[in-house]
């Protein structure tokens, strides 16, 4: 099955819906950037604020450097992420919540760091057996998931 992507401003976007009874998210809209340079998948601080995820309920996991900035990776409970296939079918993925929170202390530093988007990294692609097909000169970009019988 294929998950269509959008190529916007040089980045690869994937729209999704997140849900979790643990955080009373309901069904919330979110866009991810597919980043094969990131080993970690996370919800950005901006998106965590928008989703009203309580930061106090998260535990410190480790530090991460991204784009010259340092972030704390905070872990939480499992959430569900829904994506739409090219055949308009719904597929859900479980994700142990990770939120990237800036360590910056100045107002400008915090605002700059909050421009960071939510990222789908290589860990998510590996865990969920997803391949990235990216051929921009032909306008071809999608994630593909092979089901076991096709492997």
């Amino acid at each position, binding site marked *: 099955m294929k998950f269509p992507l*959008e*190529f*916007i*401003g*040089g*980045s690869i*976007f994937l*729209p*999704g*819906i997140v*849900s979790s009874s643990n955080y009373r*998210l*309901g*069904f*919330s*809209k*979110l*866009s991810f*950037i597919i*980043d094969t*340079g*990131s080993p970690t998948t996370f919800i950005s601080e*901006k*998106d965590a*604020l*928008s*989703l*009203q995820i309580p930061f106090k309920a998260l535990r410190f996991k480790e530090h991460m450097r*991204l*784009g010259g900035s340092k972030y704390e990776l905070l872990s939480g409970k499992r959430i569900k992420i*829904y*994506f*739409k296939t090219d055949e*308009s079918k*719904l597929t859900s993925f479980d994700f142990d919540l990770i939120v990237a929170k800036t360590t910056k202390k100045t107002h400008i530093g915090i*605002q700059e760091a*909050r*421009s*960071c*988007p939510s*990222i789908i990294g290589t860990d998510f692609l590996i865990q969920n057996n997803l391949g990235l097909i990216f051929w921009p000169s032909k306008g071809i970009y999608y994630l593909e998931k092979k089901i076991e019988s096709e492997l």
Partner: protein
Amino acid sequence: MNQQIMQLLKEADSDLVWFKDHLEELKKSHDQEFIAIKNGRIVGADKNVEKLLKSLKKEKIDSKNVLIQFVSSIPTIF
């Protein structure tokens, strides 16, 4: 429930396409700002994401039902 999620996904998809189609003009009108998009229009914008979320709340717009994107004319490398 699946129909509700699919409808929200279609909206998120449309709003992302709208963002792509209007990115160049947004770089001029909302550079370095967070914008909230819902049904193909901007329902809020601010340089500070917390202020944006407060203004959405004031307007009784659920931040979970909008797509929030950062607009930058400066190429960003993650």
